């Protein structure tokens, strides 16, 4: 049984986040990131399932001097599995992908995902050329994950096994245009945001 609490893990990773750019996959990972504090430099998804890691790649290539973190779920990652190969081919050294793996489709009735049946996403990421790809099961490992996300050479991949809890919804803004504008304004400044 997985022991980690997803909200605590994400809060630990985002605490004092500084200049970190965050993409949050749809569903619980977006709620986790919002629970840690809604932030203009977090781009949470409400759809386009399977796209989170690729948004992270586009952002990482565009902003090579900033650290980019994708926080997503096991179901979302499974839908975009090919993007791990695409990221592995590009090898952006400033990108980290954290999969909060509860082995369930949490928003649709807690059906088991492939990871509940043994799919090892970290092994896939490793085989695709990620510099470091690991399964994380213990609280004592989170500090090292955090350190890698902020300072380690990427691309990095952490599959964090968490309890399949149904936690209170903490929703980010829903308006996609607003989420896009506030992100660009915070990153690029008021003038650039309109370009």
């Amino acid at each position, binding site marked *: 049984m997985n022991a980690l609490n997803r909200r605590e893990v994400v809060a630990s990773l985002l605490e004092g986040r500084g200049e970190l750019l965050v993409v949050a996959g749809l569903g619980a990972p977006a709620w986790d990131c919002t629970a840690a504090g809604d932030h203009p430099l977090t781009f949470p998804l409400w759809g386009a399932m399977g796209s989170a*890691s690729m948004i992270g790649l586009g952002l990482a290539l565009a902003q090579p001097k900033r650290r980019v973190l994708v926080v997503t779920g096991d179901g979302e990652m499974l839908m975009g599995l090919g993007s791990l190969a695409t990221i592995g081919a590009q090898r952006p050294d400033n990108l980290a992908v954290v999969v909060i793996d509860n082995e369930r489709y949490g928003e649709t009735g807690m059906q088991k995902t492939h990871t509940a049946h043994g799919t090892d996403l970290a092994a896939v990421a490793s085989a695709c050329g990620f510099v470091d790809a690991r399964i994380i099961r213990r609280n004592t490992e989170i500090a090292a994950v955090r350190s890698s996300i902020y300072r380690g050479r990427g691309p990095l991949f952490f599959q964090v096994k968490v309890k399949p809890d149904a936690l209170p919804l903490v929703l980010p803004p829903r308006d996609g245009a607003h989420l896009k504008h506030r992100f660009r304004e915070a990153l690029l400044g008021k003038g650039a945001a309109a370009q």
Partner: protein
Amino acid sequence: MQGKISRSSSAEAIDWPAAIHRALKAQRVRQVSYVPDAGHKRLIELCHADKGMAAVPLTTEEEGIGLAAGAWLGGERSALLMQSSGVGNCINALSLASSCGFPLLMLVTMRGETGERNPWQVPMGQATPEALRLAGVRTLRLERAEEASAVANTAAKAAFEEQSAVALLISQQLIGVKSFEEKR
């Protein structure tokens, strides 16, 4: 996707992929993602050779919708190259562009229209313009090599200056028909 391609004489005379590449440069496109098509062979090579561009091969076309969104969030412009069969793979991902108003430039080489010799290319090729329209993507057509510069510039401006989702459909008549007769 090797294979003998028969081209029209006007396409031989005018380097239309280079004209598209120049239009991408003029609009400061920095990330070019693609799933290959024989019709995009030269443009893909030009993008790989361009030090001012990151050429990003994809495993499936919808990855390029996400990449373009991420690029825009980070202050860069991205274009996505595919053949018409790839449009079907993009449909749900296109909700990202329409829900958030991300600029998007898709360059789609058409299969399944003029003289297609692979019947399996016909259904998606025929559905491509309507599928894009239903997904909220405006379509423009490139039929002749001599129009490439003007039409590519119009499409790129529509994407990045008007900030809309645009697909430039490149006619099969222009790219030629795959013959399946050449030894591989």
